[in-house]
């Protein structure tokens, strides 16, 4: 066998008929495997055991305030684009108990919640979602304080990335430089090749752990031509993206336009429903709630996702700071696209398009950002 360079030893071809072996290998390594599946007429991420549970042959049609699953002409496994959920819920739980307290006479003791974090493998992580995970790491792990639940889930999570073979109707990751190809941050990445009966995945290895799982797969040798084919696929996807985020100078323009009339114009449409913040893979706001049992002997403190669109998000005794929808939309967008860069050295938007698709009135963050570009902006 000729000597191979390092890069080519780290990739292989997995035939479509052998895709199940990936799930099996992960399960053998004690991972709870989570992947795409169709539920409630959308693609969601949930526990799967069989490739057949994945959205085979399904695609989607997306636009502002619009999502429809479609049937593709082929049997692509990853032919769909971003669905309503991101992976956020599996690392940063929508609701969790922080701790319980038990009353003992006039005293009480605090008992930490000790449920061990599950060992999870995610199949089908898009490049934008990988970036979103890395952004949440900055919030929950890299700061002064870490969130131990997030940190342990994150440390064990096995990430199987999928490079996008087509752009969703609301995607704009090529303008935010967060896709559509994953260059790093994954354990394994897949690029789907589908041409008639020729159906396979280029498997690229991104980590030590990834190499161990890859060693368990019936991979065929990949060639330089396979790699080129994979790159060409994501290049085509990037070229077909219909929206762009005008990132150049956007931070300063937004921070200098806090009293721009556009905020009121978008507020006239916005329902302050919080959908955009619930579907966004980078949003990290949470609140806490306290419960006591009926006897008053045990108390519990829970944390749950929250949204800056909620009136009580900014509550101080006497009233909320951001009472108007304009102030709340301004908070969401200026934080996401500007303040985030001050706080974490990276924009909070990875161009996944979810907030556009799932906004009931079709408010488009790229269009709102563009309103602050060019002429006429103070």
């Amino acid at each position, binding site marked *: 066998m000729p000597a191979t360079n390092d890069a080519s030893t780290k990739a292989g071809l997995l035939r479509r008929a052998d895709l199940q072996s990936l799930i099996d290998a992960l399960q053998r390594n004690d991972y709870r495997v989570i992947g795409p599946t169709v539920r409630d007429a959308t693609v969601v991420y949930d526990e799967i055991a069989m490739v057949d549970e994945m959205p085979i042959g399904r695609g989607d049609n997306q636009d502002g305030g619009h999502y429809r699953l479609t049937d593709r002409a082929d049997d692509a496994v990853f032919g769909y684009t971003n669905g309503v959920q991101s992976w956020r819920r599996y690392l940063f739980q929508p609701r969790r108990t*922080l*701790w319980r*307290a038990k*009353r003992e006479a*006039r*005293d*009480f*003791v*605090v*008992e*930490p*919640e*000790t449920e*061990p974090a599950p060992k999870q493998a995610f199949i089908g992580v898009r490049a934008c979602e990988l970036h979103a995970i890395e952004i949440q790491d900055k*919030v*929950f792990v890299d*700061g*002064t*304080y*870490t*969130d*131990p639940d997030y*940190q*342990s889930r994150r440390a064990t999570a096995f990430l199987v990335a999928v490079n996008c073979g087509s752009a969703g109707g609301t995607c704009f990751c090529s303008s935010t430089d967060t896709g559509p190809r994953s260059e790093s941050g994954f354990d394994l990445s897949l690029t789907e090749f589908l041409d008639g009966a020729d159906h396979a995945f280029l498997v690229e290895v991104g980590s030590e752990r990834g190499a161990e799982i890859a060693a368990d797969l019936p991979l065929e040798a990949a060639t330089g031509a396979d790699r080129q084919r994979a790159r060409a696929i994501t290049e085509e996807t990037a070229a077909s993206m219909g929206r762009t985020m005008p990132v150049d100078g956007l931070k300063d323009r937004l*921070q200098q336009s*806090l*009293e721009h009339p556009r905020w009121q114009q978008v507020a006239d449409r916005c329902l302050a429903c919080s959908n955009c913040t619930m579907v966004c893979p980078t949003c*990290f*706001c*949470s*609140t*806490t709630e*306290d*419960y*006591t049992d009926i006897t*008053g002997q045990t*108390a519990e*403190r829970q*944390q749950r996702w*929250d949204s*800056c669109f909620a009136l*009580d*998000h*900014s*509550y*101080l*005794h*006497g009233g909320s*700071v*951001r*009472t*108007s929808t*304009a*102030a709340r939309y*301004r*908070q969401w967008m200026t934080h996401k696209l*500007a*303040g985030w860069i*001050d*706080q974490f050295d990276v924009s909070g938007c990875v161009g996944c398009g979810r907030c556009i698709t799932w906004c009931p009135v079709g408010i488009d963050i790229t269009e709102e950002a563009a309103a602050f570009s060019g002429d006429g902006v103070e």
Partner: protein
Amino acid sequence: MDANPNAATAVSSAAMADAMLPRRFHVARKRNETADTLTFDLAPADTSDGFSFAPGQFNMLYLFGLGEVPISISGDAEQTDRLVHTVRLVGSVTDGFADLKRGDTIGVRGPYGAGWPMDECNGGDVLVIAGGLGLAPLRPAMYHLFNHRDHYRRVSILYGARSPADIVYHDEIQRWRQQLDINVEVTVDHADLRWHGNVGVITPLVAKAEFDPANTTALVCGPGIMMRFVAATLERRGLASDRIYVSLERNMRCAIAHCGHCQLGPHFVCKDGPVLSHDRVRDILQIAQV
């Protein structure tokens, strides 16, 4: 050595490192400041270690089953054997402080945030300007100024309360007044018959305070509008905006820059504040509902 009952139970080290877990403190002393404001001395229940903090920092205080609120530390940072908080009863959680008795337990997380720039005050004049309960987070700064009086030139305390009955730390203020090397001015919005002092808002006191604008640090805490007027007056008198420090309030669920609630433009008030130099927030605080 570790008397913490939590340490005895088998919890993972990750859980023990959880900043969201409160530590237990016992109420050692409770005093009425005014009809709606109480001061508590707290002692740690599970350790003999003292509580170290910097003036201007705050804690998250938890009352069993009721919830958790951010409250500034109002005691002397050099007396680490007791933790002092002053609480105004304004709502669902703070009202619960009225029922606390000596020996009762509360949860404490902290200390959090950036405090007053005591080092930067060295060698110059210091203005301490408080409105209402804004005096609570400033009291540790004052103790620091007293404990190291020779490090500073002129020290002035300007304090405004709603009425004579709303003056907190009443006896202590009398003692401060008697100290010859400190200038103390108190004003009330609404006087009663026995009040012989200043009446009206605090800005006139700021306008005539004696300080060297080239070498002064101002520490300001009070209602938002008061801080804005005070800062504007100080700037008019030649004090640079970056020598004026304000302590801000925002909703806080976690105090560790995770929950997102306390954001003010690019700042997390819990982490970058609550004390911020005025030049960092002046522009954004001009904007409504920010």
